[in-house]
């Protein structure tokens, strides 16, 4: 069974304090790993897709990396507007078009 575990569940940072969010996964043949941002009361917003170990993607203050067992979302010098829940999802080789989501990390950045 495919599993995705995100840690920590919640993270409080001061503005400018860089940190990383972790997404550990167990799948039978990874086809893609996805990061989403979700603001309260809204649908998840797509951020990145990673396909193979060693791949990196960047967008503004966010950088996503991928290894064979986990992915990290690095946040550099975060701002209060980066506060949100970040979701990780995987697409397995035998799962067709379906994604398996982790429980998310709730990030709070204080000014």
């Amino acid at each position, binding site marked *: 069974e495919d599993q995705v575990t995100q840690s920590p569940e919640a993270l409080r940072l001061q503005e400018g304090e860089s940190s990383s969010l972790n997404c550990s996964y167990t799948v039978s043949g990874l*086809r*893609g790993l*996805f990061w*989403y941002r979700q603001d309260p*009361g*809204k*649908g*998840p*917003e*797509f951020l990145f*897709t990673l*396909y193979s170990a060693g791949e990196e993607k960047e967008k503004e203050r966010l950088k996503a990396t991928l290894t064979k067992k986990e992915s990290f979302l690095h946040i550099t010098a975060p701002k209060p507007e980066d506060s949100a829940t970040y*979701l990780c*999802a995987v*697409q397995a080789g035998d799962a*067709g*078009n*379906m*994604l398996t*989501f*982790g*429980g*998310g990390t709730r990030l709070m950045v204080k000014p």
Partner: protein
Amino acid sequence: SQTIHQWPATLVQPVGSPLSLECTVEGTSNPNLYWYRQAAGRGLQLLFYSVGIGQISSEVPQNLSASRPQDRQFILSSKKLLLSDSGFYLCAWSRGSSSYEQYFGPGTRLTVT
């Protein structure tokens, strides 16, 4: 560009009443469509997905059903709501090929009283 709509945005329904949530996608053809439920503070649970008109796959046995009457329309229904049906319902679409990200709608907050 592609957009996805859901309505209503919020809904309060009594136990035992019927349900109909609608999702439409614009700007693409033959998308894969998905219904998810998100309980408070938890991850997303896939309920149904569809790869074409009239083709529905269910992931979780429950009193909900889904239909796809048109290429870009996806409907989530129930004949009799339960308290446990409360949650945040999200519709998503992806391109017809695999290994593509899913794009989510704004969601419907359902409260069953």
